[in-house]
């Protein structure tokens, strides 16, 4: 099996190359088939690999070639597949395949069909690199590569300038994080003289004088950028400018969880830096709550999902910060299922609505697009943490861990969970219940999506339903398959972390609280949006202050604009106009001008008058003679 590992990333890459070159010449069917099947093939190999690892328990390390070798510093282009990455491989290729499949239908009418599949394949390739890399630099390649694909896909409809702006924003914000990541890598490299996981992790616990806090903080900055945490989260909602499958694949299921993956991967380093753990937890929690607060007033269906993604990512980071690596990763897994599902569902809705994304113009779709409705309902239940859907288990595990460490964190977390339930059901109600609020034409147009789109929905719905069962806590009579499977990865950290299991009763209570809150929230939402038929007001109208704040995303973008972009642009102009042109260049030109001015003045010495000339000569002679008086 080891010999075929390299095929996993290369297959999608081949897809990229074939589709990229043949984007104009190949037929859409062939392109779709190539794009999807190659990912499927990669999924097959991943599956085989997964089972191999499951059976042997040993990780697979494959070196392809020596990538960069400078002096004693060596970076090889090599892959490491262990328990953690094998699951990620399954998510990426599996969910990825489904989304490819979905895209065949979704993008069928788009001119850039071939280009789209090429980009998607490229994304899968980079994402695979990210998780398969056996060292931080390969991971970084994937890390930036997915950023690129994200950029390309957000800006897929680049003729719309605001979409192009959104793409640019995503790339640049990611880049800010990437710088932190890069510096973290440097610090690691200078501490361990290697960037390979295999060299760093075993030594980490016993290494002396390594600034773990700084390293992990820097790595975390990377994660913040990629996973859209505070304060770098604003790109993700904007990223919804891309086609919906992209939002599902990149901005929900896979890429944005790269930060979680990276921290989980580096768990030992983080565990060695308690301060960072705290920071991670605080940032995660804050993001979760903040994004949830924004989500409750959004009207764009994809925006709601986007903020919910941010919020869920916050949960994951909360889990990481609390040392619940398994829990966080578990949430990654389940989130991949239900969030992909939700996005695809939303895509299906949008597809049905002929491109309309504003929930205020929807409503009453329940009966018209049934498959979409039911699958989305499952997704919503899953994300809201209603048992027995997938989200419940993963979220509960994180909250339980949080409770062990800090009650106040728990309180915020669980309230956020309630908010999640509220805004998700708000979305459901607004979309599927009530009367249709769109135009007549749209109403006529509403139809269920083709099979290529609904099949992925169904598959994902099933996964969202049963996905949680791999992590049923022992309390409920399961034995947390996932935790056992991942145990080797977190072995080192778990030894360092203090294990305290809360009492069973407490755990039951916690579950009760969170489920209870979720249910209350969904009922409240029902009352508000179905019973009372409340519809968010149109853009022009007044909102209550708090809602306005939330609707306008707490003006974060505007604040960034005033605090960072405008000052930078002003500095730029100042540098150019004042320092560059008048200052430095002015000085340089001044030297030239000064010489010429001196020349103008000096040439007047040449008066043309012999008497004057001789007089000057005499003065020169006098000067020389005076010198001699002193010298002799």
């Amino acid at each position, binding site marked *: 099996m080891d010999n075929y590992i390299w095929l996993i990333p290369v297959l999608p890459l081949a897809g990229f190359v074939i589709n990229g070159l043949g984007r104009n010449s190949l037929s859409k069917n062939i392109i779709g088939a190539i794009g999807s099947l190659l990912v499927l093939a990669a999924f097959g190999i991943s599956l085989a690999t997964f089972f191999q690892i499951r059976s042997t328990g040993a990780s697979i390390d494959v070196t392809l070639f020596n990538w960069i070798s400078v002096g004693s510093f060596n970076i090889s282009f090599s892959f490491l597949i262990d328990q953690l990455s094998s699951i990620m491989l399954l998510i990426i290729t599996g969910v990825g395949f489904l989304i490819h499949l979905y895209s065949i239908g979704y993008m069928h009418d788009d001119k850039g069909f071939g280009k789209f599949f090429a980009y998607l394949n490229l994304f899968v390739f980079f994402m695979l690199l990210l998780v398969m890399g056996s060292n931080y630099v390969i991971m970084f390649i994937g890390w930036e590569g997915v950023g690129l694909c994200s950029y390309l896909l957000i800006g897929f409809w680049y003729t719309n300038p605001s979409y192009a702006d959104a793409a640019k924003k995503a790339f640049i914000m990611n880049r800010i994080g990437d710088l932190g990541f890069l510096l973290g890598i440097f610090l690691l490299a200078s501490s361990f003289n290697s960037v390979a996981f295999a060299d760093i992790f075993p030594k980490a616990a016993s290494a002396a004088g390594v600034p773990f806090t700084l390293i992990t903080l820097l790595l975390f900055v990377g994660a913040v950028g990629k996973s859209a945490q505070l304060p770098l989260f604003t790109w993700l909602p904007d990223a919804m400018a891309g086609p919906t499958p992209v939002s599902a694949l990149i901005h929900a299921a896979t890429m944005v969880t790269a930060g979680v993956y990276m921290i989980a991967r580096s768990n030992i380093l983080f565990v060695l830096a308690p301060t960072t753990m705290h920071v991670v937890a605080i940032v995660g929690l804050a993001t979760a709550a903040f994004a949830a607060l924004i989500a409750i007033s959004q009207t764009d269906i994809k925006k709601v999902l986007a903020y919910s993604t941010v919020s869920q990512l916050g949960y994951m980071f909360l889990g990481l910060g609390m040392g619940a690596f398994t829990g966080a990763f578990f949430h990654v897994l389940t989130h991949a299922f239900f969030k992909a599902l939700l996005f695809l569902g939303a895509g299906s809705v949008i597809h049905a609505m002929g491109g309309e994304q504003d929930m205020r113009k929807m409503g009453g779709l329940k009966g018209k697009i049934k498959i979409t409705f039911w699958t989305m309902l499952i997704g919503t239940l899953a994300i809201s943490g209603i048992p027995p859907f997938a989200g419940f288990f993963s979220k509960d595990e994180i909250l339980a861990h949080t409770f062990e460490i800090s009650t106040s964190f728990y309180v915020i977390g669980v309230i956020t969970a309630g908010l999640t339930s509220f805004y998700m059901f708000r979305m459901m109600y607004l979309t599927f219940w009530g009367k249709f609020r769109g135009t007549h034409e749209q109403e006529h147009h509403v139809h269920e999506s083709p099979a290529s789109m609904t099949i992925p929905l169904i598959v994902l719905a099933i996964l969202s339903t049963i996905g949680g069962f791999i992590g049923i806590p022992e309390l409920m009579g399961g034995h947390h398959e996932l935790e056992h499977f991942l145990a080797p990865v977190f072995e080192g950290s778990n030894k360092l972390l203090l294990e305290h299991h809360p009492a069973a009763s407490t755990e039951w209570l916690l579950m009760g609280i969170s489920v209870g809150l979720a249910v209350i929230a969904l009922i409240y939402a029902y009352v508000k949006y179905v019973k009372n038929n409340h519809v968010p007001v149109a853009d022009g109208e007044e909102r209550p202050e708090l809602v306005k704040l939330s609707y306008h995303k707490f003006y974060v973008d505007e604040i960034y604009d005033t605090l960072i972009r405008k000052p930078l642009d002003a500095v730029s102009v100042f540098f150019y106009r004042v320092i560059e042109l008048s200052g430095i260049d002015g000085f340089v030109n001044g030297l030239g001008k000064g010489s010429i001015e001196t*020349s103008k003045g000096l040439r007047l010495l040449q008066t043309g008058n012999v008497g004057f000339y001789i007089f000057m000569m005499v003065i020169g002679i006098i000067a020389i003679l005076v010198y001699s008086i002193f010298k002799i």
Partner: protein
Amino acid sequence: MTTLIIISVLPIVLLYLGLYKAQKALLPVTLIGLLAALVTAVMQWNSNAQPIYHGMMLFNNFSVAFSVVSIISTMLILLLSKGYFEKISKHVAEYYAIILFSLAGIIVMVSYHNLTMLFIGIEIMSVSLYILAGIRKNDFASNEAALKYFLMGAFSTGFLLFGITLIYGSAGSFDLDAIRDFVVTYPRNIDPIFYIGVLLIIVGLCFKVGAAPFHFWTPDVYEGAPSLITAFMSTVVKTAGFAAFLRLFSACFITIADFWTPVLLAVTVLTLFIGNITALYQQNFKRMLAFSSISHAGYLLFAIVALGAASANSVFVYATAYSIASIIAFGALILVRQQTGSDNFEGFNGLAKSNPFLAFVITISMLSLAGIPLTAGFIGKFYMFSGALSQYKVWLVIIAVVNAIISIFYYFRVIIAMYFRDEERAVVIVPAYYKFVLGFSALATIIIGIYPSFISGLI
């Protein structure tokens, strides 16, 4: 010595030719005569010369090298004179004769071994030049140049003589060996009048080579004098002046260098700045060349300021490079002036299109004057800088560098005018003589620039 005799007799022959109206024969005879002088000069190469005629002259390699350069430069300039003097007046023979008299003075200047000979050499040269500057008798500028040159020249001669006198007064002889012996014998407590003598000689010689603050005559005279004569003055005369300067100082005063170096240092710095900076704003190409010649005098002074074994070589290389480049510049100027009637930079506009060859050689000349590598001018500067640095005159070199930078601006103005300023103009007619001279000079500039071993290391 034969060289000197030939060059002294040649003008008399020419005067007779003139008398018999053999105008056509003048140039060929002159050239043949100079060729003969050249051959005799070269034959004296490495002949382990001793001072001759009671220590009056010394034809060693130094003087042979400089004689050869002077003669060749003169030949090149005379080749450019084909048809030039005829336009001025009918006394063509006299002109040739006086140029050759001047050359005779120059040969004396580069070969003297006695202050008497130095003095006479300088005066033969100078008096001839006073005349030559004024040969455009009806041209006001030419008149003015002649009178200015003459008055100031005579004035500076006074100082030179005073200096020589004082040196004689303390050393008791005009002979270079005797003076050197005198300096070496009393290295510590030489009579102060000797020192003053040295300074006044510096004054006199600085005037002749056009170093600041004794340079004032240069721009006016160069501008006013006929171009061909200016070419002669700025090349051969300058070379000879430096050869004389160097010979005197390296032979006699080297052991008291501590005394006079600061003076020359100041003069050098002043010369460099005045020459270069003033040249920047000139609108007249010829006047620009005059200021440029002042600045080159500054560079040449390096060899004397940093007097050492290599100085002669440096001056030789530099002067050669400068001479051939200047000949191109003046040759081109004559042609351009014939067409446009002015000496201004504008006259060169668009020359590259109408006369690519002419523009190309001027470019080479300007690059050489600016000291750009792969031209002879660079090698010259390189030698000068090396010499100065070997004496740890770092600041002097840095000042020189600053000046070299300034100088690029005005040299490149010509190139810019020729290549980048478009102007419709007729083709400038370049006679075959000119083609030969310009081509030869350009070639020499490049060859020396690429492989300076041809001429360096001769002395």
